[in-house]
């Protein structure tokens, strides 16, 4: 509840003329105060309470600062407190934190801190860097955007890229980043009516629904075809599908809606055998049209291998650059399906050496071992 109010409170302070970095500190102070006071004395208007306390914290800090003259200017300029346009404030903050002047890692950190209201320590843990490093990254990011004033809305696509990164990368310390990304995207979807925002939210929900089945008890990766589908979160799937359908109905297709459509087709199959691969290939064709990137074409080769057989998949793979990440793993899989176990085992071992993370490396090594021990028997 508290954290969902953070972005609009911060937005209001900045609108009133507070410098972004100082406003952000003030809001954090106000949140700490709220945690202390609210349990015994809950406010009738939580947001109004936070705005008032944060504004006073900001003024105290400014007063303590040497910039006295600046504060007096601010006091003169301060608009009458009153109901602020909530939607705009929240949205404005998303755009600011995803500003194109920021590097992706800075934008991610700033979004989690300013929009998400996470502490620097939590963000540092999630990205496995020392707290001092993350603190530095965040304060540099704040400085970068502190002069930015929006008189027109930013590009939603930059915000979506940042939220996608939060969902897709990072480790879970005491914060579940995937759940946090969903919360932030949901909040964004409430603030702006945009089919791609809905598309990204649907995509996240549909992938999150499979989470429990994605790893075995010992932490090993479980591929989609082998997942226990009874463990998929049907509620999240239903919500994702509904959001996606109303987005698609508006006929403004984008890459996130197309990716969500693919995820929805997987979610729709009660067994791996029932998967509608022909339709999935069609969606990959759409995706290629929307964003011609080699990873999409790699995934399309996998889908084609299921729809038209492994030879078709291998043929599609042949056109792709050999250095493409995970291409070797895909080749191994398609060769196995084609019955060439020796080549598949060799390629799985090679793919394991190139794997970008330990879970994938272990998974691919196991695949190689599985084929090798079957062949030697």
């Amino acid at each position: 509840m508290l954290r969902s109010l953070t972005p609009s409170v911060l937005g209001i302070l900045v609108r009133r003329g507070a410098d972004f970095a100082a406003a952000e500190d003030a809001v954090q102070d106000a949140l700490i105060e709220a945690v202390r006071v609210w349990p015994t004395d809950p406010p009738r208007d939580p947001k109004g309470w936070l705005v008032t306390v944060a504004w006073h914290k900001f003024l105290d800090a400014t007063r303590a600062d040497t910039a006295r003259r600046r504060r007096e200017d601010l006091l003169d300029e301060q608009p009458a407190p009153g109901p602020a346009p909530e939607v705009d404030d929240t949205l404005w903050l998303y755009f600011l934190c995803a500003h194109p002047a920021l590097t992706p890692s800075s934008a991610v950190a700033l979004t989690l801190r300013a929009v998400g209201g996470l502490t620097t320590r939590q963000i540092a843990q999630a990205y496995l860097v020392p707290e001092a490093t993350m603190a530095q990254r965040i304060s540099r990011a704040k400085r970068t955007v502190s002069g930015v004033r929006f008189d027109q809305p930013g590009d939603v696509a930059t915000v979506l890229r940042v939220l996608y990164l939060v969902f897709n990368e990072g480790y879970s310390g005491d914060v579940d980043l995937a759940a946090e990304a969903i919360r932030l995207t949901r909040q964004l979807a409430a603030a702006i009516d945009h089919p791609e925002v809905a598309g990204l939210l649907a995509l996240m929900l549909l992938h999150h629904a499979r989470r429990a089945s994605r790893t075995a008890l010992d932490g090993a990766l479980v591929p989609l075809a082998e997942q226990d589908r009874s463990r998929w979160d049907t509620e999240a799937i239903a919500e994702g599908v509904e959001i996606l359908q109303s987005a698609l109905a508006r006929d403004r297709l984008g890459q996130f809606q197309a990716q969500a459509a693919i995820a929805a087709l997987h979610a729709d199959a009660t067994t791996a055998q029932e998967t509608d691969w022909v339709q999935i290939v069609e969606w990959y064709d759409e995706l290629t049209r929307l964003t011609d990137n080699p990873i999409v074409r790699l995934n399309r080769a996998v889908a084609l291998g299921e729809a038209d057989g492994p030879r078709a998949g291998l043929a599609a793979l042949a056109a792709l650059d050999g250095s493409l990440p995970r291409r070797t793993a895909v080749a191994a899989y398609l060769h196995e399906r084609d019955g060439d176990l020796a080549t598949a085992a060799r390629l799985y071992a090679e793919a394991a050496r190139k794997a970008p993370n330990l879970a994938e490396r272990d998974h691919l090594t196991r695949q190689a071992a599985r084929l090798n021990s079957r062949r030697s028997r």
Partner: protein
Amino acid sequence: MAKYLLLKHYRGAPAPVNDVCMDRWTPQEISAHIQYMQDFGARLEQTGEFVDGQAVAPEGTFVRYDGEGRPPVTDGPFAETKDLIAGWMVIDVDSYERALELAGELSAAPGAGGKPIHEWIELRPFLAMPPTITE
């Protein structure tokens, strides 16, 4: 307390006793090995001796400054003869003996046939800060 670096090598170390490439193990043997490594790290966290541990990819590049205004020179991927680090663990322990003991345990991780790999682990003390009292 003293910090030590435990280094695992892809190559460059003497050959282990149980020298079978991992993709020639059975999937169960691989799982047992991974479990052993996870338990080892978890146990050191429990005893308050774990500092950090990371695995690094086998492929990389040497990089060198090549003068003002020029892009750095690269040399790689690594030639087969070069020493190649696979990963490290940093521990903070009370004695050299304890560091030896732990490195020995790490080397005993199970491999092919469920038997210890007897892998060579490189043990390197960190150069620490000078103490406050020196006389």
